[in-house]
């Protein structure tokens, strides 16, 4: 791995120029209306906001891959578990849900964790398989005995409108941190098991935990209503409708020459953008400081030569676990932010191709090991990913224009959305091979 990371210095102007190009793309999207761009500031800012969230996710992945060479294929799961936080923290409490089964539920979860801890103690103390099995079976029975009635009671409580445990009614911004903590806890559990073995095992184990977390969100109705979704998650910014009824804002919009509806949309998105920028810059600042500290040098030393670092007395597995948990926490924060932005928790939307592997394309294209590179790659790839949805059919429409109408033409036109996957795969393969250090290489 070391061979393709130490290479000739690149021009210091490279990153600023690339960011400038990116800014021009967004300006064009906001102002020019033609076959390529929408000419709407609302669209441009919506893409940018999601791009910023992708950038934070990419920063988390970059910590794991760029600093430590860990391949996390469960990004979608860490995003999803982070997204659970706004639901549990900021939604108003559901009447009667806690009384129906709250304490029993907590007890069940404690029993589950206690069983695992107990099994571990028995294993370490006695080394007898049957004793461990006995503990696990007993624990499982106790867990189900506590858990099942609690869930039935909670789900029966106002089933049509709620049926979930409800939130704490706290400010939604607080849930972003909680989301990071959730993801960190999940990452610790996986990392503890899968790290220290060969490198592919972490990739396979995270693939599993990713699918399981999404399955839990989809099926545990008591938690976040499962596939019935949760809408109306509180916002940290004003609602469009409030702005439109505010006479001051109407004046303000008129002065800038926008219609009120358009201006309110832009205003809300700008507010989100500022919030996201603050989080993004804070994380970059912390990450850069960490990377330049002795800790960062140690991480890079481990990444570039594990054996040598181990010989120097560094605990490679423990450091890997540390950076894996940190990176996952950042991904969890991004997941909470995403749910806050959407205002909707819809577990069916968590698709691994979109939320795991697309993020990977962003990190690799941007430049693994470089935080600014990840941000650039994330926003750029997200922009392209969204715009290809428009460009692809247009392009294919032009290409197949001369063909006679028929099945083949219809099939080609219909297949345009699938081109995105092929295009992203090719981008990943080409960058990995011909520019493995990405657009903005590591210094």
């Amino acid at each position, binding site marked *: 791995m070391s061979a393709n990371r130490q290479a000739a210095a690149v021009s210091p102007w490279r990153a600023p120029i690339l960011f400038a190009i990116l800014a021009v793309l967004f300006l064009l999207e906001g102002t020019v209306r033609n076959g390529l761009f929408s000419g709407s500031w609302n669209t441009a800012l919506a893409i940018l906001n999601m791009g910023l969230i992708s950038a934070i996710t990419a920063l988390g992945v970059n910590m794991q891959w760029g600093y430590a060479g860990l391949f996390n294929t469960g990004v979608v799961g860490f995003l999803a578990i982070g997204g659970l936080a706004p639901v549990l923290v900021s939604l108003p409490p559901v009447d009667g849900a806690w009384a129906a089964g709250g304490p029993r539920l907590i007890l069940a979860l404690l029993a589950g964790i206690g069983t695992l801890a107990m099994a571990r103690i028995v294993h370490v103390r006695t080394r007898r398989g049957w004793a461990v099995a006995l503990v696990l079976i007993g624990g499982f029975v106790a867990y189900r005995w506590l858990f099942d009635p609690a869930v039935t009671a909670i789900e029966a409580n106002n089933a049509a409108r709620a049926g979930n445990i409800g939130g704490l009614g706290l400010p939604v911004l607080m849930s972003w941190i909680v989301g990071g903590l959730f993801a960190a806890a999940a990452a610790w559990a996986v990392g503890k098991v899968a790290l220290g*073995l060969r490198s*592919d095992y972490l990739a396979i184990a995270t693939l599993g935990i990713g699918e399981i977390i999404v399955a839990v969100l989809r099926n545990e109705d008591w938690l976040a209503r499962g596939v019935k979704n949760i809408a109306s998650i509180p916002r940290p910014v004003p609602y469009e409708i409030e702005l439109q009824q505010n006479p001051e804002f109407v004046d303000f919009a008129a002065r800038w020459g926008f219609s009120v509806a358009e201006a309110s949309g832009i205003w809300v998105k700008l507010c989100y953008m500022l919030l996201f920028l603050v989080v993004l810059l804070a994380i970059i600042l912390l990450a850069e400081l960490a990377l330049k500290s002795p800790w960062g040098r140690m991480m890079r030393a481990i990444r570039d030569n594990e054996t040598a670092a181990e010989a120097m007395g560094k605990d490679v597995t423990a450091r890997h676990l540390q950076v894996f948990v940190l990176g996952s926490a950042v991904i969890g924060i991004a997941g909470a932010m995403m749910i806050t932005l959407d205002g909707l928790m819809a577990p069916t939307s968590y698709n691994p191709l979109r939320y795991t592997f697309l993020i990977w394309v962003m990190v690799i294209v941007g430049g693994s090991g470089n935080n600014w590179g990840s941000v650039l790659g994330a926003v750029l790839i997200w922009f392209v990913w969204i715009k290809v949805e428009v460009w692809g059919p247009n392009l294919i429409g032009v290409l197949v224009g001369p063909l006679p109408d028929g099945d083949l033409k219809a099939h080609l036109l219909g*297949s345009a959305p699938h081109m995105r996957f092929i295009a992203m795969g090719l981008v990943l393969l080409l960058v990995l091979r011909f520019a493995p250090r990405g657009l903005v290489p590591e210094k």
Partner: protein
Amino acid sequence: MDILNALVAFLNFVFIPAAAYGAQLALGALGVTLIYAILRFSNFAHGDTMAFGTAITILVTWGLQSLGVSLGPLPTALLALPVGIAATAVLVLGTDRAVYRFYRAQRAAPIIFVMASVGVMFVMNGLTRLLIGVDEQRFDDGARFIIAVRDFREWSGLAEGLALRSTQALTVVVTAIVCAALFWFLNRTKSGKAMRAYSDNEDLALLSGIDPERVVRLTWIIAAALMTIAGVLYGLDKSFRPFNYFQILLPIFAAAIVGGLGNPVGAIAGGFLVAFSEVAVTYPWVKVAGYLFPGWQPGGLLQLLGTEYKFAVSFVILIVVLLFRPTGLFSGKSV
């Protein structure tokens, strides 16, 4: 206590489905383990390559069906299978040439190969969607059942019925034939021995004049055959949906790791182990218990986990193996 009915219910709902599923997983895990043994990386594109091979086979099957060709009681897909295998083999040889060979020459770290295989996965996924779309497709024809529920009830006089679908029997038979052929090839032929030698010790194999590129090509061709057969059998048994083939990646990896990555016998054992645990854990045992202990009225379904969590079973097995025996039950390649 009604042991016969309980046994029939067990066979019908647990044993037969798990055996068929296990055979499909075993074939998939064999492919993963072979690629791991020779090329030394976990191939994330495996599931989507299976989907691609199946998609080609389905298209050819439809072509044959429209020409009026059929195999009588057997599904027409068996006739189309060689075409699917050939197309998949060409495709994987192409990806090896275009993608993996470069990293092999560079002696890149295994994780770089894994990453490249993710890129290949994207492309394969897109190709499959392009070919056949994302919707569910059914392509089984021929006889539906070898033993139908009603015939069995009339024949045996039991209350519980037993069904054996022809696709299930076919899966097990085909898997047995494929495994026998594979082991004959690996143990008896010169090329097979060359592959094993290369897997054991690359440098020694090079010294004894084995052409590494030939070994790699052979591996990909065999893997393509295994992937397509596994994919088609899975599709015949359950119906074809491209996304399912991405999701089956986890049980396949679990099976390969349980058996020991790089160990073909282990892959087969792992496939059945994962499949039987998955079905046993997600099956509601209340019916079987009802026959065994007529007086007992259990409160629930006696289902350990909902079927939605079947992937959790593979995951737990994976975790347990990683914790206690990272080289797998049949000791595969080193950790």
